[in-house]
């Protein structure tokens, strides 16, 4: 079930930080060309190698770009939350998504037609903000390359749980071992093993499809440095 229900909010709060950094006038002009949509948990927004029709400015939630490696494995190569925009390829002039995008944490977003973004981002403050955001996506991609290669499964699991926690704004959220495994690029059994160790230590509790964080401070102690580095990027 969607966390959002059929929300028909009239005044859209400026929760997307990229849009919030625009002048009020520019934001209001763009708002007429955007549509308020829910982001549903595990919803797939882009299929691989599909032409991007819409870009999304999340107000809340978290979207992961997950690259398929082979038939059974995927790994997250980047993520987009309320500080950015999904569909940066449209801005960069290559509007085909090489990687699928999947909603990891439910939320809402403002959705804009790709053609509109292309036109609007040629100049002005939206262009500058998207350059900034591109910079952080590139830096985040570099960090992911390091994290996937060097860090241990239990530290990476803590890191992912913290990203999800922060985006959910709650210590309780829907999540499966399978989805975590697909983000981390490891087998589900390895996630389950690391998760049960955290459960034994009373850091999290887990029932099928649901994680509750019991000890946030401990999670922050065990995570790899990537969590702090990525938080510091914003």
């Amino acid at each position, binding site marked *: 079930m969607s966390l959002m229900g059929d929300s028909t909010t009239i005044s859209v709060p400026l929760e997307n930080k990229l849009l919030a950094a625009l002048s009020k006038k520019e934001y209001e002009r763009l708002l007429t060309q955007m549509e308020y949509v829910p982001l549903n948990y595990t919803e797939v927004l882009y299929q691989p190698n599909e032409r991007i029709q819409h870009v999304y400015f999340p107000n809340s939630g978290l979207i992961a770009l997950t*690259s398929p490696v082979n038939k059974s494995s995927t790994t997250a190569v980047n993520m987009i939350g309320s500080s950015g925009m999904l569909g940066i390829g449209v801005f960069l002039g290559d509007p085909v998504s090489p990687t699928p995008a999947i909603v990891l944490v439910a939320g809402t977003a403002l959705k804009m037609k790709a053609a509109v973004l292309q036109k609007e981002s040629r100049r002005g403050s939206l262009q500058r903000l998207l350059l900034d955001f591109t910079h952080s996506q*590139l830096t985040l991609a570099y960090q992911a390359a390091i994290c996937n290669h060097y860090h241990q499964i239990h530290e990476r699991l803590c890191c992912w749980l913290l990203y999800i926690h922060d985006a959910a704004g709650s210590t309780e959220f829907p999540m499966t071992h399978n989805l975590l495994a697909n983000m981390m690029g490891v087998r589900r059994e390895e996630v389950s093993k690391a998760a049960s160790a955290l459960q034994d230590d009373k850091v999290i509790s887990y029932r099928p499809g649901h994680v509750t964080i019991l000890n946030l401070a401990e999670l922050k102690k065990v995570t790899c440095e990537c969590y702090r580095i990525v938080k510091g990027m914003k």
Partner: protein
Amino acid sequence: MGNSTKPRSPVGNQMLAALPKKEYQRLLPDLEPVTLAFADVLYEPDQPIRHVYFPISGMVSLLSNVNERATTAVNIVGKDGMIGIQVFLEMNISPNRAVVHVAGTALRMEAEVLQRESQKWPLERLLRRYTQALLTQAHQATICNHFHNVNERLASWLLFTHDQAGVDEFPMTHQFMSGMMGVRREEISKAAAAFQKNKLISYTPGRIRILNRTGLKAICCKCYSIIRAKSVTY
């Protein structure tokens, strides 16, 4: 391959070659030819970028580091692109170490000049496209670092190096490859010894000779063909 090092295009660097002729000629006084020697370091991480480089030949690897000793390559830049994309993204700090992987030549430009010039559309369009290519390549590096074994990755790296070197024999050390691939030197030496035994390469301290390119292509991970196929088109 022969030992021709002369660029085919009169401009040499593909990004500059894609500029309107008048634009290129206007930029020419700000482009200074420089040589890139094997293992030269162009940028250190977290240091300000003074110049950007448009390679005409050779290849530069961008390394991300976990700590002083553990590094891994996240991007490679050849005559298809530019080193110092952060300047375009309005963040004049390099997150990477940029190290010359294959010797060659480049045209360099002061960072301030690029910053000014990149606000003009023809160059901005090319830089946007190239940024997308770097992002896609970094995403592939995340996959490759994590999923592919040392033999597959070494074969891919030797093919990338061979492509850019344009000659069958080039300077290379196991230590250098270790820094690119983020694995211990001993593992590189072991993989290289197996390649040598199978007459794919011959190795003398500090130099590698490619003997059987087809054989390397049979071993390399698919990242080699993926990255080749996704090379930027302006």
